[in-house]
């Protein structure tokens, strides 16, 4: 901390701004930069116009295994690994780029951003700590997030074999019935 050059500090502020704009919580910023909490809070308030939310970050690996989050998480982490392993990015650089590339695909596919930035960061940390790993789907050959050391010899992913109620969330059902009520023209 003592011999911090102005250039390094500027880079860190830039990184913090980028992360805040993408939706990072304070804990993410505190871990990924050397900037003080006061400085980060100030940046956050200025950029988002409100105080950073308090409380703990989600810490369970189970969320990433549930159906739709698993698909989103798998896409994100695959992109992250390619950037880090094949494109010469360092981890946080790969992280920011991977998140943008993931969001791009979400937009193109008309999906919602299921994996927020803080979740994506938690996911990266779970991978770094070997709590989660990637496994090949035996059908499509894509790589998907599973619990580390979980026995999964005949693993089939959630896209090749969706659970019976997949995608039929209460919110979607409500949206569909609202559409029907208004005599919606769009099918499905």
């Amino acid at each position, binding site marked *: 901390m003592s011999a911090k050059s102005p250039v390094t500090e500027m880079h860190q502020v830039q990184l913090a701004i980028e992360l805040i704009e993408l939706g990072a919580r304070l804990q993410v910023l505190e871990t990924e930069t050397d900037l003080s909490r006061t400085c980060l809070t100030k940046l956050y308030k200025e950029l988002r116009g409100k105080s950073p939310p308090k409380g703990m970050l989600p810490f369970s690996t189970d969320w990433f295994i549930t159906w739709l989050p698993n*698909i*989103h998480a*798998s*896409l994100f982490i*695959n*992109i992250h*690994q*390619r*950037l880090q392993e*094949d*494109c*010469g*990015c360092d981890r946080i*650089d*790969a992280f920011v*780029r991977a998140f*943008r*590339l993931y969001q791009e*695909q979400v937009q*193109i*596919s*008309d*999906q919602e951003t299921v994996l927020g930035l803080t979740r994506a960061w938690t996911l990266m940390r779970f991978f770094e700590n070997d709590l989660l790993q*990637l496994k*090949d789907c035996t*059908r*499509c*050959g*894509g*790589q998907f997030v599973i619990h580390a050391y979980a026995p999964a010899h005949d693993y089939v992913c959630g*896209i*090749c074999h*969706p659970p019976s109620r*997949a*995608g039929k969330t209460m919110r979607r059902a409500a949206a569909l019935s609202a559409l029907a009520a208004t005599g919606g023209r769009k099918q499905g």
Partner: protein
Amino acid sequence: MSDESLINEIQDLNLTYLLLAQRMLQSDRASAMFRLKINDDMAELLLSLSARQLAKLSRTNQLLCRFGYEDAEQLRILTHQQREQDLSGFHSSLLMASRPPHSKPDETGN
């Protein structure tokens, strides 16, 4: 379609591809390498080529960009998904971002 117009189209596509690749690499090199699936040396070289060199390079009867899928079975699964969940674009993106099984560094730890 005559062979000549086909070849013209291929050459046009080649040049468009090379120019797009250069533009992508200039604006965000790492993301471009990911999208193009090329390594660092190739990125460096592509960036260094002049418009003239790109034009020369595109004058061939074969396409310069290769097909993103190598495994027909994988593509068949992707295009013949039985239960459509509006996830095919997602699936496609994920499959292309996944490292193909044969190019994995040895996974003896399993």
